[in-house]
């Protein structure tokens, strides 16, 4: 919301999130409640786009970052060695948002 203050009068069209597989976020539920939760806020009517990220571990044996298929086994899919060095999967970030602004306001921002 604070980030929107720089764009007075703008309408938010889309919000893009990055959600890791270990973020404890159920994307279906989030999408389901988005409309209700944003009602009466500057985000009302906006589209939610969720970019889900798989878990990436660093495998010491392969000396490489490897992507896990799920979250039931933290082993390297190449060599089957256990991995404990997490490199991706806990993200819960707002990546960006798309806004629509009136031309005059755009001019003001520029000026």
């Amino acid at each position, binding site marked *: 919301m604070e980030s929107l203050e720089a764009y007075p009068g703008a309408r938010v069209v889309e919000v893009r999130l990055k959600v890791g597989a270990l*973020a404890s976020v159920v994307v279906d539920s989030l999408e389901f409640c988005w409309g209700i939760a944003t009602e009466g806020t500057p985000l009302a009517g906006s589209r939610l786009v969720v970019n889900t990220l798989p878990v990436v571990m660093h495998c010491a044996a392969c000396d490489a970052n490897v992507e896990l298929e799920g*979250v*039931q086994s*933290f082993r390297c899919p190449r060599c089957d060695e256990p991995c*404990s060095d997490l490199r991706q999967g806990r993200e*819960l970030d707002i990546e960006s948002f798309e*806004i629509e*602004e009136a031309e005059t306001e755009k001019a003001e921002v520029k000026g």
Partner: protein
Amino acid sequence: MTTRIVELRRGILKKNDELAAGLRGRYTEAGVLVLNLVSSPGTGKTAFLERTLRDLRAHGARVAALVGDLETDNDARRLAASGAPVRQINTHGICHLDAEMISKHLEGWDGVALGGLDYLFIENVGNLVCPSSYDLGEKIRVALLSVTEGEDKPLKYPTMFNSADAAVITKMDIAEPCAFDRELALKNINEIRPGIRIFETSAKTGKGMEEWVAYLQQQRVKREALQ
């Protein structure tokens, strides 16, 4: 009308993470080892913690605990029986503790200052989901699992177990009547968090407590050496 894309790349939990980073700095400066205990409701966090507080006190350590629950100060009263200073945090419906709650409850705590402690334990609200997302600035996150819960709990709650630094199995004294499959439980924990230290304990009989207390002491020494 024109459209514009505003890049943000901002964590939704950024505020909590920043507060937690501040707390972590304060803990380090004060030389106190802080642990965050997480589990389902009914795992036996309070009994385990009460025993831990007693045993550490018997070794001359200065300990204190913050305990989170939705309502009641029952757990704080139980823990206070150990003789350690204990403060209850009532979340009134919120299913986890966050860094702000910890920060608030560290203020104005009668007779307790971080600098005067060796260990501070935070007993989180019984819940294996949301507390995994909230950093409290702790050095060690401890996930507890009791023999009555089913050996597949780590597989059902991978986020929590994967984020833990140590695991504790509680109520080992009733493992047999519960037909607890120890090997399977250990295997499942290791599948989710390979190489994690696992302690098999009973707060009732004291089983495994010596090893746990020795681990805590080692962690403190390690921490001091780092400073």
